[in-house]
């Protein structure tokens, strides 16, 4: 019996690792036996590259540019382990309205009931980093994704972006929009980095889905045009992604986050800055490193 399709959106600061993480989640979910579609919502249209051997696929909007009527099936391409790959695409940089492009592409799929027809278990939207206008918020509005995961490192700018996203989620939550599943902490190698994201999650009343270390395995896999799951299935990093996918599969209930006010966020960051200085001067070593 086909169950309900679980639709997930991944947001986060530009370049933070959304596409890398999303592709690994898709790959891992497919290995767990789920039918997955990854939907890149980014005019760069590079979301699904590592699922397709490093190759770009024609985008929804490229196709729409050529002909007026586009069938969703024309723009779905199969990738690693049968994962359906879609790229929304967009106009050339500096012209038109990429946000409207995302809306157009997502609506096209919704109207044609493309997900239902494919009998999918998961649709994962990988949205470009700098959500600049309403169009890029479409996946988290009413009736599209239910769960949002945000990728963030322990850098202040990444956390700032995550906090902004939380504000957006809180806003749309009143009108049936997506809710927050949690934070995927990326590039967490130092103990203090873990403390920072943990603290932020606590302050904003959410949870950490996984701590993903920065790893050269990811880079090596990417250079082969592959996800870590595909290129190095037995690596420690792959295990991290498998565990993350498993948690996402088991994740049921998302919630409205409590974003910090900008002044609170600054104060919070400043208090961490002081602690990090103390850490550097040795005053806080043992405690901060959790020994």
């Amino acid at each position, binding site marked *: 019996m086909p169950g309900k399709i679980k639709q997930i959106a991944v947001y986060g600061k530009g370049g933070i690792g959304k596409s890398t993480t999303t592709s690994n989640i898709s790959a891992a979910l497919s290995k767990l036996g789920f039918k997955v579609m990854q939907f890149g919502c980014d005019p760069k249209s590079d979301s699904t590259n590592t699922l397709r051997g490093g190759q770009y696929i024609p985008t929804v*909007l490229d196709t*729409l*540019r050529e002909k*007026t009527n586009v069938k969703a099936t024309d723009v779905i391409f199969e990738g690693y382990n049968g994962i359906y790959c879609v790229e929304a695409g*967009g*106009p*050339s940089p500096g*012209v*038109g*309205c*990429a946000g*409207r*492009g995302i809306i*157009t592409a997502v609506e096209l799929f919704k109207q044609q009931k493309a997900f239902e027809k494919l009998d999918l278990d998961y649709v994962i939207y990988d949205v470009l980093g700098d959500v600049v206008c309403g169009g890029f918020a479409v996946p988290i509005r009413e009736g599209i994704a239910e769960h949002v995961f945000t990728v963030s490192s322990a850098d202040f700018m990444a956390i700032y972006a995550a906090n902004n996203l939380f504000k957006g989620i809180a806003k749309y939550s009143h009108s049936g929009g997506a809710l927050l599943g949690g934070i995927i902490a990326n590039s967490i190698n130092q103990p203090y980095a873990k403390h920072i994201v943990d603290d932020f999650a606590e302050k904003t009343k959410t949870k950490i889905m996984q701590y993903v270390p920065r790893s050269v395995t990811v880079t090596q896999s990417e250079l082969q045009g592959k996800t870590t799951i595909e290129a190095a299935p037995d690596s420690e990093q792959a295990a991290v992604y498998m565990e993350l996918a498993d948690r996402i599969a088991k994740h049921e209930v998302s919630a409205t986050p409590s974003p910090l006010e900008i002044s609170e966020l600054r104060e919070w960051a400043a208090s961490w800055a002081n602690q990090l200085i103390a850490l550097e001067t040795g005053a806080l070593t043992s405690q901060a490193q959790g020994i």
Partner: protein
Amino acid sequence: MNSINNSYIERPRYLCSLGGALSTLEALPETIPVMHCASGCAGSIAWAQNGGSALQVGGHCGGLTVPSSNVGERDVVFGGTDRLTEQLKNTLEIMEGRLYVIITGCVTEIIGDDIRAVAAEFESGDYAIVAANTGGFKGNSYLGYDIVLTSIVNQYVKKAASKKKKSVNILGIVPYMDVFWRGNLKGVRRLLEKLGLEVNTFFTDEDSLDGLKNSSEAELNIVLSDVYGHETAKAYEETHGVPYITATLPIGPTASAELLNAVCGALCLEADVDAIVGAENKRYYRCLELLSDTYNDIDLQKFAVIIGDVNYAVAVTRFLLDDFGWIPVLTQFTDVLDGERQEHIAGKLKAPAPLNGPKVVFDTNASEVVRYINELYPKRESDKYAETIAPAFVIGSSLDRAAALKIGAPHLSVSFPVSNRAVLSRGYTGFDGGLTLIEDLLSAAVAMR
């Protein structure tokens, strides 16, 4: 909760800035507007004009036959300049003109289409192309007039090698928003010609596109509005070094004489303004003489409520105070004006005791007018000895008919929208214009006899 603020949105008294730009271009000779906007904009503008500009709408290359890129979703996503390029190419082929002006609507303005670049592609010696960012959300049609004229002044008007003595341009009378624009511009020209001036009004059948092209030769720009046309005048000043003065729309003898004196002063002319005014007054009052007996016999004296845009509200109130003798009790401005401007404009309506001038209100919702009247004439327990507003007369737009009916007063539409009159060449400016306005006012007052 989400309560709509304590006011409500009334039927508007203007179009969007795109609408104002379009109607301005429709009035310019040998000019072809090219709209870069969603399909539907042109239609809405045409129907608004149809209902508001006293049956004047469209014309050659206007209304529903205006060239428009009619952008759709695809153009929004990928940028609409390709569609505009195609539209402009076709328009240049089919529509004969000397000046083509691209004007943008909200959609293309939001996505930031580079219309200047498109215009530049088509540069040619045979015609000129101007690009104006008029995106409808920028403001109302009066602003649209200013935006499009400013663009023309900066991009099209030739740099003058030298000034032409005794030549002036007229700004501030907005075609179609002032439904008497033709008549009013002509009235102003006749008036100023008495000073021996060459008067460039741009929009009438006596004007030409060359007049506009060479308009930087003018010695002076005369802006006949406290608000409209000021940006254009500033552009002339900055780009072409043409200074400007501001004056009230001259309706009737007093305002006309004031304008003659102001212009004479600004241009340091040697004309005998007193003699001109004397002769004109003689003509004016000889005409009016016919009326004086009946005026008293059948009691044509009225209390006036004036509701209108800034040009008419000031000019009509002043005319009643200074020349005609009706008593303005309430003047309501329906423009959106900031505090500083409100103060300045309210100051223009003062009069010496016992008249004192009307109560002045700034409120875009003119259906509030009855409330303001009630504030002026509070109802007492017994109405018998209470002061009431009678006999009254309402001068406003067609939207103010309801208020007039409510207070049992006759009514004349002069300010946009004017949907219950047909206007082609009629005008209220100058000495003669004052007589025309009196005719219209009194005709409405006796219409039910």
